């Protein structure tokens, strides 16, 4: 860490060891790469004393004294009007109806914590809005005593905090957009979270969407000018890939992700049915849990492909990697996917990907076959081609491997710092 480096105050929500989806991974990997180029302080709801990061000041609200930061009453008026209704929002589906190799998630929830402002173990459960407001209040109080050049907030949960801090300090506010309410709940969702996102993005000085796809959604559905955005694609960490021997003879097509509308699980099912019409000797494996779990089981039975369509439930990293190591094609039929890190992981394992055009990863993974998420016939055709045509398969895998060289967090970090500089924030 050099003194000449820019000082970045980062606001995060999910962070290791609490990870629910791609956001926690992305925040961790990105901030870790950025810490080579900047002086980073990251404030998150909960940090564990066992979890340290090099070159980075990690502040967990659970380790703060609530008397000092939590109860300071501020009479300041926010520069926007936001109705506050306590709500049991659940933007990321948490229930796990069927678990494979269930992990012990119940770490002791009160480790060394002086304050427990909210139930941190369940970041998206319960009254998530009041959690967001408490986080904003405490973080803003904390930030008043800190020295930094820019505020860098990740997604809607930390937007309110970012706005408060900007209001108090006048520092430039950057919002990193990993996922939007319109991705998660569809373009017609106009609830509290959508309002917060809209107000937040309007108030911010710079938006960093993780893809052009997301940038255009921000423009289209939130009416924000493209001039205010700098797209920075996600990177990925190198993984040790390996191949395992399949324990059955049928080739395998894999889906990994939350079983929610956004990820297009029912598209995967339709694609499977279509492929099986032509080639009955393929197995389709769906790894993940979510509110579509039961309906996937019922629908696969209804379509009479129950013998070829397998749901694994929740999987730990080890099992997931094993699945990658035995799969022949990766399929990501997302309806709206800001990035789609799982496709990169699949590519790292040398699996050819068939991905929806409505995804950010499609912009960087040229070595892949792409389809519009509604185009079941095309996706099924792509999968069949990859399964039957070794030359095509080889070419796609080789091209993807080439692409992977450019999908790095170091590159993402550098682009972000460049964006700060070009806007004269640092």
């Amino acid at each position: 860490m050099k003194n000449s480096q820019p000082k970045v105050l980062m606001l995060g929500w999910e962070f290791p060891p609490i990870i629910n989806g791609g956001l926690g991974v992305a925040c961790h990997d990105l901030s870790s790469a950025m810490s080579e180029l900047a002086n980073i302080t990251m404030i998150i709801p909960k940090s564990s004393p066992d979890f340290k990061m090099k070159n980075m000041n990690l502040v967990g609200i659970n380790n703060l004294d609530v008397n000092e930061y939590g109860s300071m009453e501020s009479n300041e008026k926010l520069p926007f009007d936001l109705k506050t209704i306590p709500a049991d929002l659940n933007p990321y589906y948490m229930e796990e109806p069927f678990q494979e190799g269930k992990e012990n998630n119940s770490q002791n929830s009160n480790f060394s914590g002086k304050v427990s402002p909210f139930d941190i173990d369940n970041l998206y459960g319960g009254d998530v809005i009041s959690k967001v407001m408490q986080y904003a209040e405490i973080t803003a109080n904390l930030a008043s005593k800190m020295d930094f050049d820019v505020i860098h907030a990740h997604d809607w949960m930390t937007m309110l905090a970012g706005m408060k801090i900007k209001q108090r300090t006048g520092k430039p506010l950057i919002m990193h957009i990993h996922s939007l309410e319109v991705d998660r709940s569809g373009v017609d969702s106009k609830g509290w979270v959508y309002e917060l996102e809209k107000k937040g993005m309007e108030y911010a000085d710079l938006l960093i969407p993780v893809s052009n796809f997301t940038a255009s959604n921000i423009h289209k559905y939130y009416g924000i000018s493209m001039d205010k955005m700098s797209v920075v694609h996600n990177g990925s960490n190198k993984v040790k890939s390996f191949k395992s021997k399949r324990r059955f003879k049928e080739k395998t097509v894999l889906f990994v992700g939350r079983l929610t509308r956004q990820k297009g699980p029912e598209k995967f099912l339709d694609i499977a049915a279509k492929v099986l019409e032509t080639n009955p000797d393929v197995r389709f494996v769906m790894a993940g849990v979510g509110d579509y779990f039961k309906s996937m089981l019922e629908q696969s039975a209804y379509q009479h492909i129950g013998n070829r369509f397998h749901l694994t439930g929740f999987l730990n990293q080890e099992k997931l990697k094993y699945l990658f190591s035995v799969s022949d094609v990766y399929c990501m039929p997302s309806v709206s996917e800001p990035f789609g890190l799982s496709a990169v992981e699949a590519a790292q394992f040398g699996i050819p990907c068939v991905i929806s055009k409505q995804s950010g990863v499609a912009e960087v993974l040229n070595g892949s076959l792409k389809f519009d998420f509604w185009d079941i016939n095309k996706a099924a055709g792509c999968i069949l081609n990859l399964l039957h045509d070794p030359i095509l398969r080889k070419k796609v895998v080789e091209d993807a491997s080439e692409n992977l060289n450019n999908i790095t967090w170091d590159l993402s970090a550098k682009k972000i710092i460049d964006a700060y500089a070009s806007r004269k924030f640092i």
Partner: protein
Amino acid sequence: MPSICFYFQVHQPFRLRNYSFFDIGQSDSYEDDKLNEEVLNKVSEKCYIKTNRKMLELIQRHQGKFRISYSISGTAIEQFEKYRPDVLQSFIDLANTGCVEFLSETYSHSLSFIHSKDEFQRQVKKHSDVIKKYFNQTPRVFRNTELIFNNELASFIEGMGYDGIVCEGVDRLLGSRTPNFLYNSVNTGKIKLLLKNYRLSDDIAFRFSDRGWKEFPLTIDRYAQWVHSIAGNGDTVNLFMDYETFGEHQWESTGIFNFLDALPAEIMKHPDFNFKTPSEVIDSYPARDTYDAHDFISWADMERDLSAWLSNSMQQEAMKRIYSLESEVKACNDPQILNIWERLQTSDHFYYMCTKFWNDGDVHKYFSPYDSPYDAYLYFMNVFSDLECRVKALRKKSKKEMIRSLKRPSAGSRIIEARVVTSAEELYSH
């Protein structure tokens, strides 16, 4: 002179373990041996041992006038052989009294009649053989899994040489008629139907310990009164129930054993009433009318139809898949594979997948070893996938061997060789 005809169902399934996707191709142990043993031991202690002892005592006390019948599934017998030979012996002791009849059913308590007549016949024969082996009886009366019945079954079973079938007395088919007579089926000759009197059966099997029931607590003289009231309008009161009613569904503390103990004497206080086994009822009384079951009926749930096993898409898919493997399984000529496949037909697997959430859903849940019907389906289909892989591998191997034996110069006559060639061609024409 009306008779009381008792038939008790004894059945235990081989429950599957939580067989995950990752077990496919990896593990051929499908069943939860520990759980199956535990359940069998529990039910043996609470029900089979105690109730069999009581039945033997009652038969001896009444000097042959108390007569009963059982249907014991093949899977239950296998579990007795494996875990509780003492229970099997106590059934043999009952058989030796000459007052106990054993009925015929499908070996694995399956729904094979609906899906494959060949398999159905094979299983009925296999079950009949095991009954003969242990109880030295050749069954004359048939009961299908969960009393699933229709006209076609009656005529099919008649063709197999049986004299009678036990089935459910369903209100919508009986209309104003009583189940307390023997009936004929449609388009059959002599075969007679014994219809379950579900009210009097369920008074014991389900309502006995129900505190919300207006007749609670049920006294033996009250119950005998209800039975006696059929005098003049009935030949037989058919009391059919799960044997586990005694001690398992109705715990000993409910007084069910005392009730059972007093029952024969109380019934026979009325000089016109006696006890008969199903075959004896058939030999004693004529059929009075025709019972027309065009659609399938059963004794399960409120609907008394097939919905407990075949109402949702998961049940239908699992069922369809398991029977679609029949010809391949049988072509393997591997007794172990056949045995596994037979056990996967057990109706309980499909019962666990039921998603009906009325009163019956509770009953399904009570009996299910899984967290949800979805889990039941998932594990079943994973097991199916593994079995399918094994069957395919075996078939491939045997085809290869056949080709090799063709290439080998053989001392056999040309005619034999020609025949083999034909069958190999047949194989490849598929």
